[in-house]
């Protein structure tokens, strides 16, 4: 038994071996288990799980526009997840991406509406402004931590709410607010980042799109450059953390602030810097959201959840840039595909929440999965031997 060579192993053994090796394998199994839990819940609620998953899957991938919507939905949460992961890697728990997102949105709405510039200047300006403002907002938490030792979890939770009320205050300012509405004026066309926005609306554009199934369908959606920027930001985050002295510094503080301090790194400044960067990332998410999707901001009755979902995405993605891109897409696909179960079958949306919860839950426990796989292996071993 013990001397079995690799070639003797069955395909199943090999698969198990592969899956137990890396985090990717665990994530896949967690997702699978999450789907099983979702199926059970669906069955309890009286729906056919297979049918429901069929709707979900085809509702995400069967048309170019569906894929586009999934991508659009993933953009903000990928970026907030990057923000959270960045903070995590540097030893801080930024629950405040939610509020930083709001601040980014407010700033983008202001700069997008009041400033008039050609696109090639306006877009970068809006993005930079959103990132700067949200960076400073995040920096408040960093400052409070560095200077007064205020735990960032408390300060960012408080700052989330302050940002929400600030948003509601700003939305209602006369001259910014639309006449009879609780929504601001739309940003200028020049700050819009929807792909081919002008052309799409022109008669020629419409004509052309009508004639082209794939593009016609995909461009029905407000597909925008946000996703590309998200990928670029992911690369920048990865690069910064792994290839630069700044990343070295921030991670050192995150892993062991005493050693970092001893090594001559300014710990307080690092914490501040880290929160500023984390905030700026979440702000980019908010800014891009305004530039690509909402075009304006509105009074918020409650938190929208971009920041909180970002926490889940960051954790599912193992806080790595690449992982986050995939988990962001997955999360978005679950949300979007899940929303189609109701009109198709009448199943309520909380099933999706339970499913996402279950997936995250299993992802938290690689040991459970190892344990399960181990038992499968043992059983197989017994069978093979017998």
């Amino acid at each position, binding site marked *: 038994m013990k001397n079995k060579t690799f070639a003797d192993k069955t395909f199943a053994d090999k698969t198990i071996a592969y899956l137990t090796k890396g985090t990717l394998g665990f994530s896949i199994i967690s997702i699978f288990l999450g789907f099983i839990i979702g199926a059970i819940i669906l069955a309890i609620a009286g729906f056919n799980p297979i049918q429901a998953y069929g709707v979900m899957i085809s509702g995400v991938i069967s048309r170019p526009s569906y894929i586009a919507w999934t991508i659009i939905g993933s953009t903000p949460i990928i970026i907030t997840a990057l923000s959270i992961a960045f903070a995590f890697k540097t030893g801080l728990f930024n629950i405040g991406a939610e509020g930083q997102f709001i601040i980014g949105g407010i700033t983008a709405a202001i700069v997008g509406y009041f400033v008039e510039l050609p696109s090639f200047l306006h877009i970068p300006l809006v993005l930079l402004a959103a990132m700067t403002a949200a960076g400073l907002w995040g920096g408040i938490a960093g400052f409070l931590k560095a200077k007064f030792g205020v735990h960032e979890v408390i300060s960012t939770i408080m700052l989330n709410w302050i940002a929400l009320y600030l948003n509601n205050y700003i939305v209602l300012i006369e001259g910014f607010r*639309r006449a009879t509405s609780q929504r601001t004026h*739309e940003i200028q066309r020049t700050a819009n980042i929807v792909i081919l926005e002008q052309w799409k609306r022109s008669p020629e554009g419409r004509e052309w799109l009508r004639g082209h199934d794939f593009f016609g369908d995909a461009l029905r959606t407000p597909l925008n450059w946000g996703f590309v920027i998200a990928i670029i930001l992911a690369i920048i985050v990865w690069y910064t953390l792994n290839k630069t002295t700044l990343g070295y510094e921030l991670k050192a503080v995150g892993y062991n602030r005493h050693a970092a301090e001893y090594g001559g790194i300014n710990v307080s400044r690092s914490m501040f810097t880290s929160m500023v960067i984390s905030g700026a990332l979440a702000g980019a998410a908010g800014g891009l959201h305004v530039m690509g999707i909402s075009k304006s901001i*509105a*009074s918020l*009755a409650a938190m929208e959840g971009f920041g909180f979902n970002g926490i889940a995405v960051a954790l599912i993605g193992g806080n790595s840039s690449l992982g986050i891109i995939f988990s962001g897409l997955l999360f978005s696909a679950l949300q979007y595909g899940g929303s189609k179960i109701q009109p*198709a079958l009448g199943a309520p949306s909380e099933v999706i929440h339970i499913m996402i919860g279950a997936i995250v839950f299993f992802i938290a426990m690689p040991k459970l999965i190892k344990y399960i796989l181990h038992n499968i292996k043992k059983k197989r071993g017994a069978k093979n031997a017998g």
Partner: protein
Amino acid sequence: GCGGGAAQDPAPEEDQEQVEDQPTEEQIKMAMVTDVGGVNDQSFNESAWNGHKQAEAELGFSVSYVESEQDADYERNLETLLDAGNDLIWGIGFMMTDAILEAAEFNPDQKYAIIDPDFGENVVPENLVGVLFKAEEGSFLVGYIAGKMTETNKVGFVGGMDFPVIHGFHYGFMAGVKHANPDAEVLVQYADSFVDAARGKAIANQMYQQGADIVFHAAGGAGDGVIEAAREQDKYAIGVDEDQNHLAPDHVITSAMKRVDNAIFMVAEMLKDGDYAGGETKVFGLADGGVGIAPTSDKHVPAEILEEVKQVEQEIIAGKIVVPNNKDDYEANY
């Protein structure tokens, strides 16, 4: 049978043409996108869904809905329903205005309708119907009742968030109170939340403590707290949107109802009859049963007052009373 239905209908335009050609033979499909409150919000989303269910029961429609979790979901949810081959798609709530305008523009062959739109300067496209409610008219009536029934000459209004949609309730109510009882004082406070029940309760408690004996709320979940305060203090409260008497049968004397269900049913009927009124904004007020007071009002409101209310209602319908829905109009007249 709709397994994967969303995916199977890549050409909604065709479907629709068929429907228009033979409206009586094909089942008409109608669906709605809720706003972030979700379908069971015990408020206008739910009322809208009830309208759909009524259309299903009485007109033989096939109906469904999609719930939105964030503002960002509106567009894609509208599209989900488009792909599902619906004849009429509803957006519920003013927050969806931009999204539905966009959808209507891009899909000129699809029919849309929206509750509480905020079109502003936009032209309403031919394939979109706006449905507005004169919330101020219903509020005026409950204000009138409050003005008549108050024993302390003090009543209260608890708003959710301080913005235009709620101002209709606010100033309509104030006007109604003054109309009934010029000496009555109205205490006004906003909770700045539609969810914080404790805040609503505290505000109402404070109002009762200050001598108010009837408090009207337009504050969603925060309003639960208002009603609870009335129950505990043994004072009166006035509900909103739906008949909230069930929350506190002895204390909710009436509710300013917004009959989203009626409006949706009416639009559905029109669609069935082939006179879908695209390009218009229909305003539902007292005249067409779009707003009104709760049927349970007779439990607490004396019959003679209800009689007066009926008269006032007629006067409003006749245009003899013009109900303000914002601060400027209110201040100009009262």
